[in-house]
């Protein structure tokens, strides 16, 4: 028993204030993200000139035993990254392959609890069930929001994504889940059909292209690589990172625990390596 508890038991109905700790300077507040071994992939081979390459992710989050709590924290981080990044980030296959079955098991478990046995419990012991249900809703929300954000980008960059997937063999292999690639193809197909039927087929033949990049404005929209994003440099070590803004010929030192507004292209490698997160 620690001193807090002894004091507390003496002073039953009032609450103590948490003893003063110097916890203020850590942006993440809790230590949860400090243990995050989240990286999108091993990007030593990343070529700055070609932001389209996504190297393969053999070693994702499997180096250490991941707990469900870590998985959830990683998911939250990926959700925030996806929401803030201009481009579509690689699909976290392994992470979701762990989380989705867990979710399904939990749903079955809750159902078994609430079906037959609920009446056996006193009101107070329904509490865990309440929380388990609330937790389920929260988890479902994050996954849903994450996936729908991805679908939005898949739609927005459909022709661009199709072209990079068609042009490279392995680099884009981890970009989409199976279901997402089906979605990309089918949606592009029906969209193309709409464009064809209402516009393109009524045009002269040389103006019928949908992926014309030769005209005065390219028809294939790419992510805005230089878009400004808010980043948090993770507090993993005391080591700073040097980044270069090529357009301005500037170097910037990013120190751990700090927040910056930077061009996405400048910090993309660090993001892929899990050294920073978007906030």
């Amino acid at each position: 028993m620690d001193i807090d508890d002894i004091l507390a038991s003496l002073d039953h109905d009032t609450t103590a204030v948490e003893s003063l700790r110097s916890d203020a300077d850590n942006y993440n507040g809790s230590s949860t993200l400090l243990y995050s071994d989240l990286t999108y992939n091993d990007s030593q081979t990343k070529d700055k000139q070609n932001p389209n390459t996504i190297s393969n992710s053999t070693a994702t989050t499997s180096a250490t035993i991941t707990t469900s709590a870590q998985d959830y924290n990683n998911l939250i981080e990926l959700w925030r990254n996806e929401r803030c990044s201009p481009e579509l980030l690689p699909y976290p296959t392994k992470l979701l392959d762990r989380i989705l079955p867990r979710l399904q098991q939990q749903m079955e478990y809750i159902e078994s609890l609430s079906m037959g046995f609920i009446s056996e419990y006193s009101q107070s012991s329904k509490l865990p069930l309440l929380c388990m249900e609330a937790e389920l809703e929260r988890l479902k929300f994050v996954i849903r929001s994450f996936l729908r954000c991805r679908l939005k980008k898949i739609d927005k960059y459909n022709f661009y994504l199709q072209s990079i997937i068609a042009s490279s063999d392995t680099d884009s292999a981890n970009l989409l889940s199976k279901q997402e690639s089906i979605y990309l193809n089918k949606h592009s197909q029906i969209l193309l059909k709409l464009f064809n039927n209402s516009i393109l087929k009524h045009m002269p033949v040389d103006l019928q292209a949908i992926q014309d990049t030769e005209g005065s404005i390219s028809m294939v929209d790419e992510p805005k690589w230089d878009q400004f994003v808010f980043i948090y440099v993770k507090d993993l070590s005391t080591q700073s990172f040097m980044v270069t803004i090529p357009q301005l010929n500037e170097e910037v030192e990013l120190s751990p625990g700090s927040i910056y507004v930077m061009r996405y292209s400048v910090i993309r490698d660090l993001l892929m390596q899990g050294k920073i997160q978007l906030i």
Partner: protein
Amino acid sequence: MGYYDIDDVLTDSAEIPCTFNHTIPGLGFLQGNPGKSINKNTRVTLPLWMSRMLAMVGGEEDGEDIPFVELNTPTVFSQKVINAIRASPTSLDIHSLYGHYYDMAIKWIGLFEDEKFAEICSELLLQRSIEINAHANSVMLNIHSNHRPSNLKYSGSNKGPTTIQQVTPFLFDIRRI
């Protein structure tokens, strides 16, 4: 930007005054004379999507490649208007001048790589945006704190604005190397 971006499509329709460097038959419709030709040195306004291209491609004249048209500075970017805006960047409503003023300015700057104009526009944009934002925020502050009318007692401080100017860079630490 982007092919399908409605705002960008609209920005591209901005009217730019141009002068033709060649006499071209059949283009009279550009100045309301269909079927006629358009003569050298004629001034017409053409939408940006057309004028910017005609200003880059040309025909030969006396052995020299001369673009089909010469672009003239639109009124909204004229020295006179710029001076008026600079004199009071926060009071002149740029949006009433032109809906996509800054987007159009960006395209215009790109055509001539006009660094000076880029600087002027950057300054305008920043001051104007801050003004608008400050207004929005003061409204918000008042809504938040209508139970406490003295809500802004710290904002001025007793040290005066110059102090703030000197020290604020630490807030937004722009470490340039």
